[in-house]
């Protein structure tokens, strides 16, 4: 896949990218940001920007073997690798655990 637009997030010590067409709005608090998505929400430590025309690579077997988190692929932005979030199955590091969650697909 190529040409994706990603909203870049920091969470759990990692750089993440959320397909920007999935994001409806951002709600900032003191030490975290809530992303309201078409389906559900995510929690991040910070929003770092937007990356355009990012080439997304599928996660290979070695990654899947040693990292059980679902993901929508991998990419590089500005020399730094990132994980593309599968919004239907958010990673634990970004899950909104306070109820309003859009995590109904995560089990």
């Amino acid at each position, binding site marked *: 896949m190529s040409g994706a637009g990603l909203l870049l997030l920091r969470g*759990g*010590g*990692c*750089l993440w990218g959320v397909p920007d067409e999935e994001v409806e709005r951002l709600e900032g608090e003191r030490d975290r940001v809530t992303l309201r998505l078409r389906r559900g929400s995510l929690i991040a430590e910070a929003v770092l920007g937007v990356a355009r025309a990012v080439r997304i*690579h599928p996660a*290979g*077997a*070695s*990654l*899947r*073997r*040693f*990292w*059980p*988190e679902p993901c929508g692929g*991998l*990419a*590089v932005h500005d*020399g*730094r*690798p*990132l*994980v593309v979030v599968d919004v239907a199955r958010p*990673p*634990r*590091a970004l899950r909104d655990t306070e109820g309003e969650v859009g995590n109904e697909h995560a089990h």
Partner: protein
Amino acid sequence: MGKGPLGDAETARCLMVRAGDHVCAVPLARVRRVMRALPIFPLPGASPELLGLAEFGGEPLPILDLARLIAAPPGATAQFPVTLVVVAGPASDREVVGLAADAALEIAEVPIRSLVAGDGGLVRGEAPVAGRAVRLLDLEALGATR
């Protein structure tokens, strides 16, 4: 032990690397690049074998800890740690991954007929090379489910 990717050859030309207390032989045909250890960005919740992601040639590269993959006891502190960019997985599912190792040592021939079968996982077997035991890696097995 089947023929595997090494076919009928009597020796396998390999890059010797140190991983913890072990010396490993990586088939040279699988090695794409060797470089000073790449900066690694950890992934939350990853198994210890997966150190994280790095950037290589503008693409994301999973970096695996070779010493952990082969359960090597700790060795001397690495003076010049390296990242090996290798082609792993079976022919039907090739992928490029990085292996973090403590040092790249030399290129040598590993006598296939002297191999003592390994654990059935990443270590294909053990053979003597220049008076020391080396573990020949089977990179086809890397992505396989445990």
